[in-house]
């Protein structure tokens, strides 16, 4: 139990996908102009990461490991991820056309969101069991969503600030991201001493 809690916190906060591993930065900068869009993106990515990680775990265990096909790992993983993204895209388009509009190009681009493949590869490297792998993937994507929403909130306020022209736009967004990463360093080393 304690290990699971620690792993949840570790994957979500301490080794946050965006702020500590620097994965998924394109969507982090791209779709965080509004809180609801960022939350939608977080939800979609959470779904994709969790589902594809489960599938990838199975592929790794029963296909790649079983038949010694390790060299196919990237290809098969991307295949699984792309399918999951396609499915998510269709669902969102059906359920919420507005969110579909707002996410725009970033939705199909979840396929190439390095966070998704990154989490899948981390699982494989960690040699986790199925439950642990699923939990890890879910916690990682929760961390991703949390940071996306926080950053969107900060940017909503940033839009109203009179930032000097030199720093307006992406520069100040990156500065904020770095300060946020600094704040998240406070979680480093969380363990039950």
């Amino acid at each position, binding site marked *: 139990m304690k290990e699971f809690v620690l792993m949840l916190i570790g994957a979500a906060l301490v080794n946050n996908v965006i702020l500590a591993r620097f994965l998924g930065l394109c969507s982090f900068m791209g779709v965080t102009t509004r809180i609801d869009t960022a939350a939608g993106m977080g939800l979609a990515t959470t779904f994709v990461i969790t589902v594809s990680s489960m599938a990838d775990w199975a592929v790794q265990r029963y296909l790649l490991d079983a*038949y010694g096909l390790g060299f196919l790992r990237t290809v098969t993983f991307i295949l699984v991820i792309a399918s999951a993204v396609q499915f998510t895209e269709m669902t969102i*388009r059906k359920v919420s056309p507005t969110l579909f*509009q707002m996410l725009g190009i970033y939705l199909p681009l979840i396929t190439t969101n390095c966070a998704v493949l990154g989490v899948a590869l981390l699982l494989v490297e960690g040699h986790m069991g199925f439950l642990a792998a699923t939990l890890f993937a879910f916690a990682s994507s929760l961390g991703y969503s949390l940071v996306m929403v926080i950053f969107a909130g900060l940017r909503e306020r940033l839009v109203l600030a009179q930032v000097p022209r030199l720093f307006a736009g992406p520069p100040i967004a990156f500065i904020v991201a770095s300060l946020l990463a600094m704040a998240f360093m406070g979680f480093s080393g969380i363990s039950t001493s």
Partner: protein
Amino acid sequence: MLIAVGSLAFMGLALGGLLGTAAHYLAVEEDPIEAELQAMLPGSQCGQCGYVGCAQAAAALARGEAVVTLCPPGGKAVAEALAARLGIKVDLSAVADTGPQLAQVSEEICIGCCRCIKVCPTDAIVGAAKQIHNVIREACTGCAACIDRCPTEAMTLVPVPVSLQHWIWPKPATANA
């Protein structure tokens, strides 16, 4: 080798089949965004946006080829409505909103040729041959279609005079600016 090819092929087929089924159940009708956009435009077909008419402008907007600030007669209000529908952000301060304008006939120059009457998209100009024309203020959109048609340059655009009811407090100047 065979196993690799076979497994990839199998995965492809299986996932493809799954997606195909999903696509069947989750099919979405294409939303008629073009018609919606056209409904927001003034519909006076004045051509100031560079497109032949409002329908064409709406089509270009839907394809993402035109900017939402394309419609001068619509001003900020239309630009904002279009941006909201298209789900994009727009810098309204960039809209060259000169404020509402009206066409005006200089009576001493007008020769009563009726050319402006024919091009006015809203039938806002009244007059007959050899009679001095006049603009109905309520109907004029300030689209400027008549300005170039006038052979004697009797047509000019003037800003609508500010009245007590239409006066707006200026935005406070910020100290930091």
